[in-house]
């Protein structure tokens, strides 16, 4: 993954979005086949956000995400095998079947979940950044959350704390206009989220979350500002989820026309058009990327299916570290 490069790499951005898309399309099939269970929250439609933001991070930076975490995990570099095995509840890699689809955690890439309490990840991100600030490092913590989380007290307390202490956090709001069935206008008295965030004396701006190049540019400035010691920054990515909130959700609260309208701005489609216009993408390279993505997904599924179950005897292992492996 190019880190902090001055110009975006459209091919790489497309490749990452495609990986996430194909991965989740397979998740849908696997869920219907009951290979994956629990709530599964899909990122389909929102891929440009993770894909555009995460290239700006260094290996030693940290990422905090929500239950809608497949995209961030994959783009951050959590191996697809590991994520898929976790969804299968297998013991191989990451959480050894304890976390599941909504709790992908991966220490090597400093990927801190996978938090299923809305707003719960924000204080965590503030603390990770506090540790960096107190240890004099220039590491950055990016915290992803939805617009619905902004109504929680945790958002308010975390923004204030990060701003007061000038902590290196990028608050990345994925505004997909809905919190389950609740539209933004019914959850925020100030629907202009960047304006809202700036009331904490935190620099805040918005970007088109369907245009990965726009996200890349906006995040580039944001991460630089944070890394240079400017304190926290708030970035809103205006996006939309093409699927229901979770596999449980019949999606009664959005009208089909609205969904169709947004599908026309599918982040993969938008970038494809741009690249074709620029001549940097043709049918062949597209087909190759797709074959590679599908192959990676196939391999991950195979890996997961060959995975073994964590022994029931180990159920209580890791409740405390004394039970953890050295």
């Amino acid at each position, binding site marked *: 993954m190019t880190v902090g490069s001055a110009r975006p790499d459209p091919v790489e951005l497309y490749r990452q979005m495609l990986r996430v898309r194909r991965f989740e399309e397979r998740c849908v099939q696997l869920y219907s086949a009951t290979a994956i269970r629990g709530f599964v929250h899909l990122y389909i439609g929102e891929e440009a956000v993770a894909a555009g933001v995460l290239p700006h991070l260094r290996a030693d930076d940290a990422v905090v995400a929500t239950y809608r975490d497949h995209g961030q995990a994959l783009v951050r570099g959590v191996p697809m095998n590991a994520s898929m095995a976790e969804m299968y509840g*297998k013991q191989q890699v990451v959480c050894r079947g*304890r*976390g599941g689809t909504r709790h992908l955690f991966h220490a090597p890439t400093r990927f801190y979940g996978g938090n299923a309490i809305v707003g719960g990840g924000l204080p965590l991100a503030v603390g990770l950044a506090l540790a960096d600030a107190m240890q004099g490092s220039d590491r950055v913590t990016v915290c992803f959350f939805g617009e619905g989380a902004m109504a929680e007290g945790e958002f308010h307390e975390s923004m204030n704390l990060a701003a007061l202490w000038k902590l290196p956090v990028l608050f990345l709001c994925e505004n997909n206009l809905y919190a389950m*069935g609740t539209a933004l206008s019914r959850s925020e008295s100030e629907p202009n989220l960047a304006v809202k965030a700036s009331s904490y004396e935190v620099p805040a701006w918005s970007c088109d979350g369907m245009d990965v190049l726009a996200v890349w540019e906006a995040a580039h400035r944001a991460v630089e500002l944070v890394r240079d010691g400017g304190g926290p920054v708030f970035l809103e990515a205006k996006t939309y989820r093409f699927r229901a909130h979770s596999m449980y*959700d019949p999606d009664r609260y959005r009208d089909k026309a609205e969904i169709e309208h947004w599908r026309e701005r599918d982040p993969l489609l938008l970038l494809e058009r741009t690249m074709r216009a620029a001549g940097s993408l043709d049918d062949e390279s597209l087909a190759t990327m797709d074959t590679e993505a599908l192959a990676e997904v196939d391999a991950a599924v195979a890996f997961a299916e060959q995975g073994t179950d964590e022994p*029931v005897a180990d*159920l209580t292992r890791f409740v405390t570290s004394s039970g953890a492996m050295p």
Partner: protein
Amino acid sequence: MTRATKPTTYREAIREALAEAMREDPRVFLMGEDVGRYGGGFGVSLGLLEEFGEERIRDTPLSESAFVGAGIGAALGGLRPVVEIMTVNFSLLALDQIVNTAAALSHMTGGQLNVPLVIRMTTGAGRQLAAQHSHSLECWYAHVPGLRVVAPATVEDARGMLWSALQDPDPVIIFEHGSLYGVTAELACDAGPVDLDRAAVRRPGDDITLVTSGGSLPTVLDAAQALAGHGIRAEVIDLRTLRPLDDATVTSSVRRTHHAVVVDEGWRSVGLSAEVSARITEQCFYELDAPVGRVCTVEVPIPYAAHLERAALPSVERIVAAAEEAVGSHG
């Protein structure tokens, strides 16, 4: 003549109770995350928005502390709010309002005020939702003076407890186990309020008393059935109300059976099972032939993987084993 009945799910029973309450009492309204347009996180309030409108089926932002506190204030202001907290896991964010205000107000004000508030929340594990969505924290609420805590385990109680709770002048917490929503039973078409003070004997027996509540009742009834096969006649008691506990029903059974096992989906240590066990021993010490057994959830954050989650929760096997140990333990 027998009363007319119709097949009803636990989910429908709660919905009907809500609808009836709102038709009969204009002060009653439902408030919570996604109770309106979404139809409720678990579909309980589906369709109510259409009948009662958005004033009375009130979607809230993600703000557990504020909308629960607003329910307390609305109750003080003359309304009869039913506040839905999507799951008990999120109720931690509202505990301060519930414990420090709702539960304390009547006593703290010398009886000047009372808080006729009903809070409903889904509880329990079993759906592979993992550590942050599988808590059973009924025991915490059952610890707090000033609250009444109920856990409907049957369709009839799901229908009746809400209405009875709305008649209570003080805060009532209703725990709905997520695994029960789909359970169907014949419900009297004219089903009405139920008694909130008494536990219920769900299956009679003379050899051992199995005490449980809420989502564990079906498992315990299966265990009792299995025990019958082994020649052990288990009496199954559904506590129904977790605060205040109905000791009399439990102890009168134990005085007859001389053995008891408490089954609770909560964690074992410092949970509901400990209180029931302690009370039985305090009141039936000289009639007990063996120590009271406990079958609870293994003390781990609930894991996602199906086989691990299953192993963590109370099972027929574990209940049967505990019952046989109790009955067999004295020779």
